[in-house]
């Protein structure tokens, strides 16, 4: 008896006693004489796995730069880790990237919730959260509080406002039904759609949330149809956006559809149109800032030819019509530009400084006229876009480039 308790006590005491703690960290890890290490999470599996192409496109571009000698004689290594679109996994993966792999910067991590989950941590350990792949407004708006975080794409606030204003100006007394993802991403779009409508006669008559972990949005679409709305706004991730179209069509509902940009890419629309059988797709409205590889306008465009050749060379088997690859290349192009400006001795602080003073009117993967610009209190790299309408199997732009002055 006594022996047992002694052993249990000894075990507990031993467990609490601590051997030598490891010490030490060096300034600005992740840079060697031959490499710069970037790392980021991407949903390679899970409900948003279609976004994996963002990281794949970026990697293909960076690999092509490395093949030409890299930046300041350093190769850019981009380590992609799966987080299954689950922020809890993002947190662990990013801590691993920072503390074990010792990345120079966390780059191109995808998802609003994922980036929110790691922002406090990265800002406390002062590791750049470079070009977060999310349009949440907070990246630019709260830059003073989170100096190590910067986004890239137009904010969802700007995007939602553009849709609101479009409806207000083009439709009288529209009744809008909204399907939105029940997180900061969906709510950001929903809130700004409301402010874009302003005092026009159009209003939101129903808004149905869905959980990103749920299997489908069938019941939400049925409820939205029952609201008697004549406009359906889909603020969703791609899988659910496709489902929304399919269910609406099955119910015989033919509203005018607005689909948010990151789910309204042409490859998604082709899937949603079910080989042309789904007529709910025709006439949909979205906004984009990227050159669409399926758009005949860019058939002979030099940068889109480059895009195709890089993709076939560095991302074998990748579908070139998937626009997310273009996004990945656009953000990688900008990153290479930023890294070049750091010169021979890159530091994390200099990286953030460069990212906060961008002025690039020539990103070849973005629409002509789009300027990637930050500085003087502006922390939103891209603030422009182009409205477009799905017409006979492809996106057709209308109106000029819009520029957001409100974020």
């Amino acid at each position: 008896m006594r022996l047992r308790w002694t052993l249990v006590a000894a075990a507990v005491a031993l467990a609490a006693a601590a051997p030598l703690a490891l010490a030490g960290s060096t300034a600005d890890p992740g840079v060697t004489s031959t490499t710069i290490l970037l790392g980021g999470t991407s949903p390679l599996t899970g409900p948003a796995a279609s976004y994996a192409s963002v990281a794949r496109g970026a990697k293909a571009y960076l690999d092509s730069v490395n093949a030409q000698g890299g930046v300041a004689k350093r190769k850019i290594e981009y380590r992609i880790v799966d987080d299954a679109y689950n922020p809890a996994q993002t947190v662990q993966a990013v801590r691993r990237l920072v503390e074990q792999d010792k990345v120079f910067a966390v780059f191109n991590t995808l998802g609003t919730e994922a980036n929110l989950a790691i922002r406090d941590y990265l800002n406390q350990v002062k590791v750049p959260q470079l070009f977060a792949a999310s349009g949440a407004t907070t990246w630019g708006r709260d830059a003073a509080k989170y100096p190590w975080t910067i986004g890239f794409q137009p904010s969802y606030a700007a995007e939602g406002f553009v849709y609101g204003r479009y409806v207000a100006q083009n439709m009288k007394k529209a009744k809008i039904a909204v399907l939105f993802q029940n997180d900061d991403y969906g709510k950001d779009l929903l809130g700004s759609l409301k402010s874009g409508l302003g005092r026009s006669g159009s209003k939101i008559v129903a808004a149905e949330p869905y959980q990103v972990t749920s299997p489908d949005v069938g019941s939400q679409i049925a409820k939205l149809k029952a609201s008697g709305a004549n406009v359906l706004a889909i603020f969703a991730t791609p899988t659910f956006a496709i489902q929304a179209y399919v269910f609406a069509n099955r119910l015989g509902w033919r509203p005018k559809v607005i689909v948010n940009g990151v789910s309204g890419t042409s490859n998604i629309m082709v899937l949603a149109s079910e080989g042309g059988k789904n007529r709910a797709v025709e006439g949909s409205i979205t906004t984009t800032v990227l050159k669409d590889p399926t758009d005949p306008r860019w058939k002979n465009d030099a940068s889109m030819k480059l895009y195709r050749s890089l993709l076939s060379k560095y991302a074998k088997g990748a579908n070139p019509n998937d626009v997310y690859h273009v996004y990945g290349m656009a953000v990688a192009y900008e990153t290479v530009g930023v890294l070049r400006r750091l010169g021979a001795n890159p530091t994390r602080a200099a990286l953030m400084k460069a990212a906060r003073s961008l002025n690039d009117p020539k990103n070849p993967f973005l629409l002509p006229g789009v300027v990637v610009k930050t500085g003087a209190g502006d922390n939103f790299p891209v603030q422009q876009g182009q409205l477009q309408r799905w017409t006979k199997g492809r996106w057709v732009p209308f109106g000029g480039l819009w520029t957001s002055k409100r974020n």
Partner: protein
Amino acid sequence: MKPRTQRTIGFVAFAAFVVFIAVLPSFISDFKARDYSYVAIYLIALLGLNILTGYTGQISLGHGAFMAIGGYTTAILMAGNEQFGGPISGGMKDLWTLPIAGLVAGLVGLAFGFPALRLSGLYLALATFAIAVAMPSTVKRFEEFSGGGTGIQLFGTPELTGSIANVQVLGRSLTPNDWMYYLAWSIALVAFAVAWLILRGRTGRAFRAVRDSETAAVSSGVSLARYKTLAFGISAAYAGVAGGLFAIVSAFVNPDTFPVALSIFLLVGIVVGGLGGLSGLVFGAVFIAFLPLWAQGQDLGSLLPDRIVEETKKPGGPAIVYGVVLILLMFVLPNGVGGLFRRAGQLLSRRRYSPPK
């Protein structure tokens, strides 16, 4: 070999394991210590689940939900939920939230034990699975209480010991990762000892009696209602403590921290570790903590052919590797690692089981 000698061997093995745990951080990188603290967390949850499933014979596919209850209890007591419009102001130091996390989850477990009395086998598995499925949505539903899908951030809060700065313990300076490691393993080892004490006596005997034959148990005077609910309560309390620790070590909780898959992984963990044994569970815990990483070609990447590592990087790759490894393991070790231990023990003590002729 006499049972007495066998027990002494057990104690020596446990003491050796404790020493191993105590010195391990000196031999691994600072960050790896953090990975191993998750092993301790899963071990706690597996100990609890094995009391219920391995010893009492009640299958639970919902233990991730009990971990969620513990995790959210800890997170809300630490950070409060006033920022979402809830009633709790928080401010409790991380360590003190753990007993409460265990208590709250344990009470919920007890409460669930009552309806579970009427269910058995497959039906119980489905009922517990339902809580696991409902938990993430329920957490999101009560946004003002739980922070909704965005979750609760604990990193950098004053309640969390060791966000960035080193922690002073017993005159030594520990890095945050080493601190989490020792915290989690101290609790796990105590939990191990407590589980052993519960199972070796009258209560453990009653649990096993319920598992082996309910009819026989009742006719020997064992109250089914009492012991089944007790097993549920104890088991959920273990899960609650594990969930609380998970929140502390991750410094973050959101509804997807405790997904449906977690409940299934826990069951996988006790099967890999060996049902109805305690020591094998350490391997079960290692399995669920590290296999998702290995399946992505990390850490072990240098040991595998490039061709395979490349496959794991593709969309869906990790899930396939995980499945294949699990199937192989069940072929090689049908009774889990614990079964292997028992077999080795039998061989050593030359008491090989020979089937009755």
